[in-house]
C-alpha cells in the first residue's frame, strides 16, 4: 500500500494515539474499567495497523519475531514472578499485600505489575498470531 | 529345615540364570541343568521328614494385597507333587541332553532356561500356601511353557501354541480368577485350610457355580471340552511333552483340583452334592471318550496325549467323589501316572531320535531294534493300564475303594472299562513292536539311516533316563504304602 499517501499519513498520525490509549487502558485499569487484556489488544491493533499500511517486512524489522516471542514469555514470567514474590515475602502465591509495607499499596503495586505482564503477553501474542497468518502466502 | 523352603523356588531360578551365562558352552550348560535339578531335588527331599511328622513348613514372602499374602506352605499333597516334579526333572534332564543333541535342535539355551523357570513355577504351585499364590505360579507356568511348546517356530507350532495359550489363559483368567475372587468375597480368606474355608459361608447354588468355575478354570486339568490344548502341546520337543505335559503342567492342574476340593471346599462340602455328581459324570465321560479317541490316533505322541487326558480325569473323578480314599487315590495317582507316562513319552522320543518315526503304524518290529526302549514301554504301559506289579495298579485300587466308600459303584465300572480301553490303545503298539516283522528297507525311506537287523538304540543319555523312569514305575508299586502314609492326613476332615 505504499502508494496510498493518505493512509500512510493518517496511520502515522493515528498510531501514537492508539498506543497512548492502550497505555491509558493499561494503567488506569486498576481504578476503572480496563486492564491488561484490553490494553494488550489495543496495543497490538496499533501495531497491526502499522503492518497493514507499511507492509509485513517493515513491521517485522521494527519488531522481529524473536522479540515478540521473548516479550510474550517475559509477560508471563512477570506475572508469575510477582506471584512468586508473594511466596518469597511470606504470603501465599499471588498475595500482593505483602509486596509493600502497607497492604493497600502492596495490592496496588501487585495488580499494576500483574496487569502489565498480562498486557505485554496479550499484545505480543496478538502480534505473533497476526504475523503468522499474514506471513502465510510467502 | 524350613529355611530351605524358599530355596526350592530360588534354586531353579538361579539355575536358569546360570544357564544363560553358560550359553556359549553347551557342556557346562547341561552340567548346570543337572546340578540344579539335583540340588532342587535334595532341597525338596529335605523337607519331607518334617511333613511326614505332621509339620507344615510355611513362609510368608510378602503381602500382596491387604489381607492377602504371597505365602508358601508345604502340606502332604504338595510334598508329593514337589517330589515327583523335582525328581523327574533330573531324569528328564538326562534325557533332554540326549534328545536335544541327538536331534540337533535349535535354541537349546532358551529351552533349558525356560525349562528351569517352569520347574520353579511348578514347585511354586506345589508349595503354594493360598489360592492366590497358587494362581500366580499357575499362570507363570502357563507363560513359561509357551516358548517351549512353540520351540520349533514352525507354522504348526505357532498355531498349536495359540491353542495352548488361548485355552489355558482364557480359562484361568475367565473362570478361575473369577472363582478365586468370588471365594475371597464370600470367605474372606484364600488360605488352604484343612476342612475347607467355604463351609457355611455360601449357599448350595453358589457352591455349584464355584465348583464349575474352578474345575473349568483349571484348564491344565484338561477336563473335556477344554482338553484341546494338551494334544496341541505335543508339537513341542519330546522332553517337554514328557516332563511338562505328562508331569509338571498337567499335574499342576489336577493337583490344583485336589487342593481346591480338599482345602477350599472341604471334602464334606462337596461329597454327594448334585454339582459334584455332575462333575463326576463329566470326568467319567472325559475319561472314556479320551480313551476312545486315543485308540484312533496313529501319531504316537497324540495317542499318549489323549491317554493323559483320560488319566487326568481319573484324578478329577477321585476329587469329585470326594471321599477320604478317593482323594488319597487321586493324590497317589499323580505320582503313579507321572512315572508311567514319562516313561512312555521317553520311549516315543527315543524312537523318534533313533529312527525318526512318529506313527504307530510305522512301528512294526521296532522292538527288535530297540529292545531296552520297548521293554521300558511295556513297563510304562502296564502301569497306565493298572496292572500289578506296577505303581498304577495301587492308585487305581485306592480310587475304586474311594468310589465304594462314597457308594458310587458306577464309577468303579467306569474305571474297569477304562482299563480295558487303555489295553486297547497301548497293547497294539507292543504287539506291533515285538511280533510284527520289520519292514523291508525299500518300503520305508527312513530305514536308510542304518543297516537292518542290528540294534539301534537312542543316545545313551536317553537310554539311561528311560531305564531309570521304568525302574521307578516298578519301584512305586512297593513305595505305595509310604505314599499312602504321607497322604493320610488328607482324608481327615
Amino acid at each position, binding site marked *: 500500500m505504499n502508494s496510498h499517501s493518505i493512509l500512510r499519513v493518517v496511520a502515522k498520525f493515528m498510531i501514537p494515539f492508539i498506543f497512548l490509549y492502550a497505555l491509558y487502558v493499561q494503567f488506569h485499569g486498576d481504578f*476503572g*474499567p480496563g486492564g491488561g*487484556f484490553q490494553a494488550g489488544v489495543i496495543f497490538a491493533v496499533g501495531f497491526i495497523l502499522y503492518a497493514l499500511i507499511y507492509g509485513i517486512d517493515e513491521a517485522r524489522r521494527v519488531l522481529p519475531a524473536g522479540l515478540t516471542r521473548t516479550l510474550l514469555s517475559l509477560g508471563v514470567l512477570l506475572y508469575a514472578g510477582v506471584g512468586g514474590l508473594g511466596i518469597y515475602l511470606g504470603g501465599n502465591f499471588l498475595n500482593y499485600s505483602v509486596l509493600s509495607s502497607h497492604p493497600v499499596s502492596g495490592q496496588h503495586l501487585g495488580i499494576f505489575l500483574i496487569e502489565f505482564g498480562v498486557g505485554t503477553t496479550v499484545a505480543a501474542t496478538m502480534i505473533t498470531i497476526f504475523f503468522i497468518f499474514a506471513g502465510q502466502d510467502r | 529345615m524350613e529355611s530351605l523352603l524358599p530355596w526350592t523356588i530360588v534354586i531353579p531360578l538361579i539355575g536358569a540364570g546360570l544357564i544363560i551365562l553358560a550359553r556359549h558352552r553347551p557342556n557346562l550348560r547341561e552340567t548346570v541343568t543337572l546340578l540344579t535339578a539335583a540340588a532342587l531335588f535334595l532341597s525338596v527331599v529335605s523337607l519331607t521328614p518334617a511333613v511326614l511328622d505332621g509339620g507344615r513348613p510355611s513362609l510368608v514372602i510378602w503381602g500382596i494385597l491387604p489381607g492377602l499374602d504371597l505365602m508358601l506352605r508345604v502340606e502332604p499333597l504338595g510334598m508329593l507333587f514337589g517330589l515327583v516334579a523335582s525328581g523327574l526333572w533330573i531324569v528328564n534332564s538326562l534325557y533332554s541332553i540326549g534328545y536335544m543333541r541327538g536331534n540337533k535342535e535349535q535354541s537349546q539355551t532358551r529351552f533349558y532356561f525356560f525349562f528351569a523357570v517352569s520347574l520353579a513355577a511348578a514347585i511354586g504351585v506345589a508349595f503354594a500356601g493360598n489360592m492366590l499364590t497358587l494362581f500366580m505360579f499357575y499362570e507363570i507356568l502357563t507363560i513359561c511353557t509357551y516358548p517351549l511348546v512353540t520351540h520349533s517356530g514352525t507354522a504348526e507350532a505357532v498355531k498349536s501354541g495359540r491353542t495352548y495359550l488361548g485355552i489355558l489363559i482364557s480359562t484361568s483368567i475367565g473362570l478361575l480368577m473369577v472363582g478365586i475372587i468370588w471365594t475371597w468375597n464370600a470367605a474372606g480368606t484364600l488360605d488352604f485350610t484343612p476342612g475347607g474355608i467355604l463351609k457355611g459361608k455360601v449357599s448350595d447354588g453358589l457352591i455349584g457355580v464355584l465348583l464349575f468355575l474352578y474345575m473349568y478354570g483349571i484348564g491344565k486339568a484338561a477336563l473335556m471340552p477344554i482338553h484341546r490344548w494338551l494334544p496341541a502341546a505335543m508339537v513341542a520337543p519330546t522332553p517337554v511333552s514328557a516332563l511338562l505335559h505328562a508331569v509338571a503342567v498337567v499335574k499342576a492342574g489336577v493337583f490344583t483340583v485336589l487342593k481346591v476340593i480338599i482345602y477350599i471346599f472341604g471334602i464334606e462340602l462337596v461329597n454327594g452334592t448334585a454339582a459334584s455328581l455332575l462333575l463326576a459324570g463329566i470326568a467319567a465321560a472325559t475319561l472314556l471318550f479320551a480313551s476312545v479317541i486315543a485308540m484312533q490316533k496313529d501319531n504316537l505322541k497324540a495317542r499318549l496325549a489323549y491317554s493323559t487326558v483320560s488319566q487326568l480325569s481319573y484324578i478329577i473323578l477321585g476329587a469329585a467323589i470326594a471321599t477320604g480314599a478317593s482323594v488319597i487315590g487321586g493324590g497317589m495317582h499323580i505320582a503313579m501316572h507321572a512315572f508311567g507316562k514319562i516313561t512312555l513319552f521317553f520311549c516315543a522320543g527315543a524312537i523318534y531320535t533313533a529312527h525318526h518315526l512318529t506313527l504307530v503304524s510305522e512301528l512294526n518290529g521296532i522292538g527288535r531294534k530297540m529292545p531296552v526302549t520297548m521293554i521300558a514301554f511295556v513297563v510304562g504301559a502296564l502301569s497306565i493300564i493298572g496292572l500289578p506289579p506296577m505303581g498304577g495298579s495301587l492308585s487305581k485300587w485306592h480310587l475304586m475303594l474311594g468310589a465304594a466308600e462314597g457308594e458310587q459303584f458306577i464309577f468303579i465300572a467306569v474305571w474297569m472299562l477304562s482299563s480295558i480301553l487303555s489295553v486297547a490303545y497301548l497293547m497294539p503298539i507292543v504287539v506291533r513292536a515285538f511280533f510284527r516283522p520289520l519292514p523291508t528297507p525299500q518300503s520305508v525311506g527312513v530305514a536308510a539311516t542304518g543297516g537292518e537287523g542290528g540294534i539301534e538304540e537312542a543316545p545313551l543319555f536317553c537310554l539311561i533316563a528311560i531305564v531309570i523312569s521304568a525302574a521307578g514305575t516298578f519301584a512305586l508299586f512297593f513305595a505305595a504304602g509310604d505314599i499312602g502314609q504321607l497322604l493320610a492326613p488328607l482324608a481327615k476332615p
Partner: protein
Amino acid sequence: MAFPGLINYWIVVILMMTGFYIVISQGNLIKKIVGLNVFQVSVFVFYISMSKVFGGAAPILDDSIETYSNPLPHVLILTAIVVGVATTALGMALVVRIRDAYGTIEEDEIQRLEAEESEP
C-alpha cells in the same frame, strides 16, 4: 418469571444451537470454527446475562450505589473469551496447515484423500 424474563435464555439456546448446527453440518473447516465461535459466544452471553441484577449498577465502587450487578461472571467470561480467542487462533493455524498439506479445506475431500492414503 414470565416469558420476557427468560428471553436471555432463549437467545442463548438459539445461539447455541445455531453454532452447534454449523459445527455439525458445515463441511468447510473455517465455517466449523465460525460455528464453534458462535457456540462459545452463546455461553458468554449466558454468563453475562445471568449476572445482571435488576436495578444493579456496574460494579465500580461508589458510595452512592446500593446494588451492584455481580462482577464475578464478567471476570470469568473475560478469561473464557481469551481462551476462545486462543482456540480460534489455533484452529485457524491448523486449517492453514491442513490446506498446505491437503490443498483443500473441505472435509469430504480431505476424507477422500485420507481414504486413498490408507488403501495404497
